[in-house]
């Protein structure tokens, strides 16, 4: 699992601690150690009345906080899953270390859209000024036949025979150098369990691809991919034998390239494009291209966006309703304060402070819960995509502000139209 940081958990803990302090029943008015005391001392004592009103009825207070927390949890969790899925679309680009430029066919729109280029492209790339080195990288899809006769689709990666540039870095069993053994392949950990469920990781397993024998000489840990297929690494020359020959006769989809030290990869990439007529992208540009394709041409953003928007609407409805009802139930008290001479702007400030506190605590608890959910659910469901970057925390925070403002506006309107004379009418 990837989480931006454990800040949300810390935040939720802090807020919860504050809440417990604030909710101490019968705390003396001089208690200066509470948040209410701090606000009452340093700010306006009216803030303190607002907080006492908010937290005076624990059940209502918890209901409002729960509503906001739930909304925030939904938004953060769904956004994090969306980010996780999007991250997986580019996991193989990120997992390919060493090279900082990918050279490919001009028609490539994303990683899986690999189209072959002429096999001498690597030499043309090497001739471009500013290129430190360039090697072929095979990437294609193959069919593996297991010992029991079943077939498994796999992603096949072919590394340059001489350098093995772009090889995985996190080996669990075996070593990269073992790829030099004839018929050797490396399998990723998740792929191993997919092909040999409930068996411990081991080397020596034999599979067939394109009627050729392949032996597992190592297991490595890879980032989860979008397709969740096993990823098999082998040498380039070996990889071309593990798949049927293509009709075009061209085998090379990518050339991995490194810019000379001191030269910006972007500049070298533009030179390669100008000189070879191929598409050359820096690692970041290729990541962006792939992600943009999935964002624009698949239903992922729409489907997740719908869920996030629904979460926002449901959250707004829940939080807005509970906060509005809280205000309505306290109208008598607002009316009393209004009759006693409290100005409208003070009353607005009271409601906004109540909203800010509820929103702040709800945000902390919500993103904290989303983080905990991510940690524990991924242990139970390794295929769950969950990535909580700071942008999701910011998005959730912004959503919380909007939700609280919307909820507060309804409440403010109700209080502003309240006639102070209502307090003389039977006290209601």
């Amino acid at each position, binding site marked *: 699992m990837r989480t931006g940081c454990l800040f949300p958990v810390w935040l939720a803990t802090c807020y919860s601690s504050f809440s417990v302090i604030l909710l101490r029943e*019968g705390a003396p008015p001089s208690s200066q150690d509470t948040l209410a005391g701090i606000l009452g001392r340093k700010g306006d004592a009216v803030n303190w009345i607002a907080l006492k009103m908010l937290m005076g009825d624990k059940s209502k207070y918890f209901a409002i906080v729960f509503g906001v927390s739930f909304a925030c949890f939904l938004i953060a969790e769904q956004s994090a899953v969306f980010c996780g899925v999007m991250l997986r679309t580019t996991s193989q680009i990120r997992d390919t270390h060493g090279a900082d430029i990918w050279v490919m066919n001009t028609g490539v729109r994303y990683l899986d859209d690999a189209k072959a280029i002429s096999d001498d492209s690597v030499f043309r790339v090497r001739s471009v000024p500013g290129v430190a080195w360039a090697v072929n990288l095979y990437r294609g899809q193959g069919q593996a036949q297991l010992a029991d006769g079943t077939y498994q689709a796999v992603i096949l990666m072919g590394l340059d025979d001489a350098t093995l540039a772009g090889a995985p870095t996190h080996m669990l069993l075996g070593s990269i150098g073992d790829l030099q053994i004839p018929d050797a392949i490396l399998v990723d950990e998740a792929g191993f369990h997919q092909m040999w469920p409930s068996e411990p990781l081991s080397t020596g397993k034999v599979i067939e691809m394109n009627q050729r024998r392949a032996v597992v000489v190592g297991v490595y840990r890879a980032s989860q991919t979008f397709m969740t297929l096993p990823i098999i690494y082998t040498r380039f020359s070996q990889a071309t034998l593990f798949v049927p020959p293509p009709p075009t006769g061209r085998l090379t989809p990518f050339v991995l390239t490194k810019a000379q030290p001191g030269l910006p990869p972007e500049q070298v990439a533009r030179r390669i494009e100008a000189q070879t007529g191929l598409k050359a992208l820096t690692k970041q540009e290729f990541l962006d291209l792939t992600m943009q394709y999935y964002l624009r041409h698949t239903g992922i953003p729409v489907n997740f966006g719908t869920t996030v928007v629904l979460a926002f609407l449901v959250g707004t409805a829940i939080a807005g309703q509970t906060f509005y009802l809280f205000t309505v139930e306290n109208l008598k008290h607002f009316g009393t304060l209004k009759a006693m*001479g409290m100005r409208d702007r003070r009353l607005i400030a009271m409601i906004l402070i109540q909203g800010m506190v509820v929103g702040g605590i709800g945000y902390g608890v919500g993103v904290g819960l989303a983080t905990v959910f991510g940690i524990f659910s991924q242990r139970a469901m390794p295929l769950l995509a969950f990535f909580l970057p700071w942008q999701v925390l910011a998005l959730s925070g912004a959503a919380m502000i909007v939700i609280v403002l919307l909820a507060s506006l309804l409440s403010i309107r109700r209080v502003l139209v309240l006639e102070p004379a209502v307090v003389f009418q039977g006290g209601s």
Partner: protein
Amino acid sequence: MNPTTPTRKGVTCRNLVKDYGSGESRVRALRGVDVEIAPGELTLLVGPSGCGKTTLISILAGTLDATSGDFSVLGVNLQRLSKPAKADFRARNVGFVFQQFNLLPFLTVAENVAVPLIINGSSRATATTLATEILHAVELGDRTQSFPSQLSGGQQQRVAIARALVHQPRLLVADEPTSAVDARTGHAIMELIRQMALQPDRVAVVVTHDARVFGFGDRIITLEDGRVASSKRGERSFTHDPLAPA
């Protein structure tokens, strides 16, 4: 002189009219009320339900606008004040005692009494200190840390009176202060209002239909159908609790 600065005058109303609603659904609650209330007196507004007592007291307290007519409270024409200025006038010059006490249940007794001072800009510590002092004066010094729900009806009304007077207002308005308590407590409350509210420069107006407390009034103004039916000096028959055991 600042128009919101009160003088030593009391309350004057001339042909005061108040309508609720408009068009065919319009209801005229006050039909030209003329009233003079002098400072230093306890004035009772009495009359049957629906006669306009609450409307009149709401206008006098600055919580409701009159439809027409002239009136001044403590020498200030509230009709000319903006909404915030009227709120400031209420905060500084008006003390409220409500029928249902209207204490804030989430605050302690001392905190409740401190609220008018806080609205007027006092720090919480200063306000609580002054609130505790006045609570001792109404014999609730031992209940400052209690919550309203832990008090009897009579005790709650005493807290409400303390809250109404803690900021030394020039005008005290009380709406049916004895209707939610028994007769003995009602007399004690009226005695307390008389003791604490009556100062030479202070105006006290109590709305009541509780005939048992009429004897506390210096002046009794009777309203009927939105008009003043009578205005006469009270007998001030109760100077102590008549129901107290000998």
